[in-house]
């Protein structure tokens, strides 16, 4: 009993001292209030978290008990997410593989032309594309092309893009790739809006443009207008034999391209590009050089709502060349200044149908006296996203030879998940 009394006495004295202490320190009360608030907010957070989890489970249960009313004539059924990925696991590490076939009939009134009234599989493109690792992706494009009675396979492009460089907004590319000069040089045959490449490109870069092994770096230039401005610098082998040195070339060709992009309205855009390429055109390590300047301007109109059925692309490029040739003056050199350009208009008037026209003017890197003037027109029928048919007429007026009239009928088809082309 005495022990109990003693214990009670101690308890009361402790309680009173506690009261006295708390009463004496208002900060302590504030702290307790804060703790209480924190507990309340934690409780609220837990409650809302459980509520959301419960509601998710409820919605799942509700969905599972509903009878799915999907159309009965399809080989499809509702599936859990785990099933949704089934069947793709085995192929996950394979690259995306696609094949594109390009078949043409080419009629011409030039009887000496090797293309004279011929059916031709111009090209079969095999494309492989995948991420290499978290830092890079790679794209390879092999072209199988007829060469007389035989077929040649070659690497049109094969490069790795470094996506995650330590410098912000910088990307790199190594391998063989199409030079970033203007717009059309980067396009593969099947991606052209016409059957053939413009004369400007074939006269200055060869049949399929300039594609060489090299390195490339591109940088998004920060600007106060928040616009897309991309600068690309490239160094590539000097093996282009039309404007540059050809197979014997030992020096590099350097290419620079600045791409500016503007949204005019939500359905129309303008792209303005400037390009520069320079390199020796002999094996003389810079004695005879070629300098090329390019300007490209592309306007696109595609209203968002009606965009499946209506669109316009107005694409223009000009190229100016200054090429040192062997001359008979004191320096032994002679500079040839020449130029070429094209202007193209495409108009889509229905979901599957579009028409196009193109005007070409082009001189040659070695002669500004020889000139091509050509006018083309045609129509494209897109059977689907993966197959199109095209007819094109072209009249070429040459001041150095016989004029020509040509007709092409083209069918282009693609298999597999080909990576989409740039805008």
């Amino acid at each position, binding site marked *: 009993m005495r022990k109990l009394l003693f214990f009670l006495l101690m308890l009361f004295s402790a309680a009173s001292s506690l009261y006295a202490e708390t009463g004496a320190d208002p900060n302590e009360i504030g702290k307790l209030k804060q703790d209480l608030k924190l507990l309340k907010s934690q409780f609220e*957070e837990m409650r809302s978290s459980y509520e959301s989890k419960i509601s998710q489970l409820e919605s799942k249960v509700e969905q599972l008990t509903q009878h799915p009313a999907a159309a009965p004539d399809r080989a499809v059924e509702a599936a859990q997410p785990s099933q949704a990925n089934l069947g793709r696991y085995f192929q996950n590490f394979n690259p995306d593989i696609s094949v594109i076939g390009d078949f043409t009939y080419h009629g011409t009134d030039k009887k000496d032309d090797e293309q004279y009234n011929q059916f031709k599989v111009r090209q079969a493109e095999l494309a492989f594309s995948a991420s290499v690792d978290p830092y890079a992706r790679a794209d390879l494009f092999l072209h199988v092309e007829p060469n007389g009675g035989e077929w040649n396979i070659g690497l049109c492009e094969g490069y790795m893009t470094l996506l995650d460089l330590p410098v912000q907004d910088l990307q790199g590319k190594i391998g063989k790739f199409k030079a970033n000069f203007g717009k059309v040089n980067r396009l593969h045959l099947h991606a052209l809006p016409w059957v053939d490449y413009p004369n400007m490109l074939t006269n200055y870069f060869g049949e399929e443009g300039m594609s060489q092994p090299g390195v490339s770096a591109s940088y998004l230039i920060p600007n106060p207008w928040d616009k897309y401005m991309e600068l690309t610098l490239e160094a590539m082998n000097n093996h282009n034999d039309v404007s540059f040195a050809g197979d014997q070339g030992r020096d590099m060709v350097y290419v620079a391209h600045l791409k500016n992009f503007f949204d005019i309205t939500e359905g129309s855009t303008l792209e303005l590009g400037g390009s520069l390429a320079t390199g020796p055109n002999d094996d003389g390590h810079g004695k005879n050089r070629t300098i090329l300047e390019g300007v490209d301007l592309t306007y696109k109109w595609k209203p968002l709502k009606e965009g499946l059925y209506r669109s316009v692309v107005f694409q223009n490029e000009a190229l100016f060349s200054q090429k040192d040739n062997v001359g008979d003056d004191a320096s032994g050199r002679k500079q040839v200044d020449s130029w070429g350009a094209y202007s193209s208009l495409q108009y889509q008037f229905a979901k599957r149908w579009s028409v196009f026209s193109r005007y070409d003017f082009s001189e040659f890197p070695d002669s500004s006296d020889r000139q091509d003037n050509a006018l083309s027109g045609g129509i494209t029928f897109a059977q689907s996203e993966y197959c199109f048919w095209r007819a094109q007429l072209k009249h070429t007026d040459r001041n150095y030879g016989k004029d020509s009239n040509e007709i092409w009928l083209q069918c282009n088809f693609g298999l597999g998940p080909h990576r989409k082309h740039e805008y």
Partner: protein
Amino acid sequence: MKKTLIFLALIFSVLPCSYAQDKINILTTTSDLKSIAEFIGGDKASVDSLAKGYQDPHFVEAKPSFMIKAKKADLFIRVGLELEIGYEELIIDGSRNRKIRIGQLGHLDASEGAFLLEVPTTTKVDRSMGDVHPMGNPHYWLDPLNAKIIAANITERLCKIRPEDAAYFRRNLTGFNRKIDEKLLEWKEKLAPFKGEKIAIYHRSWPYFINSFDLQIACELEPKPGIPPSPEHLKRVIGTIKQENVKVILTEVFYDEKPARFVAERTGADVVVVPNSVGGTKEAQDYFSLIDTIIDKLVQGFRS
């Protein structure tokens, strides 16, 4: 004193900027994801979308200006199921924003855990089937219960990105879910008189909506997904509509109305043009008014 005042003025002028920068930048592919992300993110997120509600979400182009938007994003949210296969990779690669690359915290596939329909069960999907999505029909946002799952996915990701605001995002999720529950009752009540009704559709954007509100699909104007209607197919559609007594042909705002009108003239069915995404029409301002708009127009169609 003057110096102190200038200093204070500077501090206060900088404060709103730093506060604005403090918002999480979210970039969604579609306007529906944008709307849901706005509910969850509230005033702690700034949300933008690539596609507008009145354009076909399958055919968004990878404009370089989108890369600039993606460059600034802290979180990129996609519908998934390969709806964005034509442009997502180009935009993300072109943006040079490593935060939003696939597999990173800043990249979210909103379809994670969603209830999916039309996942092909055949061993192989090919293009003879039209534009079939091998992982399932991607129009799952038109099921309001899937909207809850999208919202939960966004919430969880925002909580990971900004743990200090987790309670705020979760409270917004609770509010969103509560509103879906309330509206679901209202929507179901509106469509209750038409339970089991068969409708014709242009594209298979609608199975999730149909499934949610106990309607049925009689036929589609597209012979196969993504393939434009042919005269021969429309003849079959006219036969089905007459045979099944279909009253409504449902089509999206961005499709050519001519085939639907052609069929309607020959069958007496009503063409109902509706948005399938937020912003598709002026009334569809957010996710709730989107479903409101679809249901109101559908009810009008059934009644007329």
